[in-house]
């Protein structure tokens, strides 16, 4: 019997704790596959965030460091400066990266730190129970925006990739989605490219991945994929915002 699909060596055999229909699992797998395909799993040091992926250190099959909320880019800076020949990445959600950790992500990009950030944007705080995030869409309900997000009092959703793309040190910035197969394929390519940019020592790279949260969006997994496509894609356009000249 031939094996046609198996677990990537980039992940441990620990069962995910993620909710049914959450796309964190897909994204974990893509990152794990990329680390294996680039042959850098043994050199990889990942930094886990605070949020739904707080336990990512149990899932990635490489050395892992658990950071405080939002501080993953600072922790990754410390690691990469000590170990310039290793491959360092942060895995962060939108509450972590776009709210409490804005200073850390902007200045890691600003310094051109040579690590890779996997930024999972599901437009809500998942772990703490569905509170409003800076990325929550206008009108979207959250436990701290029970009447729907109101731009007049909470501002417009923050587009982190566009903001980071204005920083010279952020040499690779791309937004992708994992709500369909074509999107997943493109997402993997972007993740691979971001790691290649790091390995080539070119600067800071980030891949923003639009992701689902059926539990806190209050809809089914299938409806979530559709909701992402219909609501998130128009506000968070997919595509590459920055890429280095070399190896384009």
């Amino acid at each position, binding site marked *: 019997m031939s094996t046609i699909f198996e677990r990537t060596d980039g992940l*441990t055999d620990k069962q995910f704790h993620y909710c049914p229909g959450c796309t964190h699992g897909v994204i974990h797998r893509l990152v794990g596959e990329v680390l294996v395909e680039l042959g850098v*799993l*043994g*050199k*990889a*040091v990942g*930094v886990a965030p605070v949020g739904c992926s*707080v*336990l990512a*250190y*149990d899932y*990635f*099959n*490489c*050395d*892992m*460091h*658990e*950071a*405080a909320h939002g*501080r993953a880019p*600072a*922790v*990754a*800076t*410390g*690691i*990469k*400066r*000590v*170990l310039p020949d*290793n*491959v360092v990445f942060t895995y962060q959600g939108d509450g972590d990266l776009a709210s409490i950790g804005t*200073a*850390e992500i*902007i*200045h890691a990009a*600003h*310094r051109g730190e040579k690590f890779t950030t996997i930024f999972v944007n599901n437009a809500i705080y998942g772990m703490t129970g569905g509170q409003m995030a800076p990325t929550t869409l206008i009108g979207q309900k959250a436990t701290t925006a029970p009447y729907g997000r109101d731009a007049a009092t909470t501002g417009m959703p923050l587009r982190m990739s566009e903001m980071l793309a204005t920083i010279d040190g952020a040499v690779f910035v791309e937004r992708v989605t994992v709500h369909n197969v074509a999107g997943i394929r493109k997402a993997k390519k972007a993740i691979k490219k971001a790691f290649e940019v790091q390995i080539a020592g070119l600067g800071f790279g980030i891949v923003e991945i639009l992701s689902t949260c059926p539990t806190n969006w209050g809809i089914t997994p299938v409806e979530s994929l559709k909701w992402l496509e219909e609501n998130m894609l128009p506000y968070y356009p997919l595509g590459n915002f920055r890429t280095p000249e070399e190896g384009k």
Partner: protein
Amino acid sequence: MAKVLMKGNEAIGAAAIKAGCKFFFGYPITPQNELPEFMSRELPKIDGVFVQAESEVAAINMIYGAAGAGARTMTSSSSPGMALKQEGISYIAGAELPCVIVNISRGGPGLGGIQPSQADYFQSTRGGGNGDYRHLVYAPSTLQEAVDLTIEAFDIADYYRNPVIVLGDGMIGQMMEPVEFNEPKKRDLPAKDWATTGTEDKRRPNIINSLALDPAELEKHNIKLDNKYKAMEENEVRYEMYKTEGAELIFVAYGTTARIVKNAVDALEAEGIKAGLIRPITLWPFPNKAFNEIPTAKALVSVEMSMGQMIDDVKIANNGKLPVHFYGRTGGMIPTPEAIVEKAKEILGGGK
């Protein structure tokens, strides 16, 4: 080795380099600025790394990463900046990583002032961050002691896998004194086989972490940490006894204040008044046992550049045996020997 005249902040930086620290992450704040400036100048010369972080919060988290990667690493700050670092210090203690953190403290609360102060005693010794944790706090009184303790702090941090604070008031950071850089006492240090340096496909992944969602697991971890802190209390207490033999009045003072109190003790001695000084060198663990070595004492007086913080520990150590008095100046004001002598006479005269 010949002595060199150095400013405190720079001497502490040079001591860190002597101890093998090649990774420094800091943020500007007065009165510690000469320390990061020194590191930014010297570390590139030895293939080290200086990073000016975007904040004290980021700097301590860079330390968290660098320590996790197995490096000897240091950050420095001053009081309000130290307040910002408490989050990271708690994580570092929880994840059991070694590092050295220097606080050249100034007056507070809030933005306070920039002159020397000892108002960070609570912050330093009570765990300014969340959770059940402790760390050593060294309080040098001279620049030579600041150098010696900084060098040794790296060994102690590695030995216990715990952050170590070097607490100097602004005077220690800003004054100049001759110093020499000596080898510390040799310690057998454990291998850093826990560091996140990449598995190289040869071992299971290492995980640096302070999260334990299972309360039974977290309690086990807290007990393990506590055992480590008990070992520090057992082995790492340091203090100096100055003219305490036969003394009726015992001052308790640390850092710059202890130097001033020594002058007061000498002045009292010249007048035939028997006073002595207990000088804690470690603020945590506090030298409780020193208070069992003063059989002739009739009263204690805590002298601080604060409104009275260490006095709590003095009272705990004293355990109700002797009356405990206080003299302090704060906000960046420095106590004078004359005022301390007056206070001593007032206490010995019965107090009014």
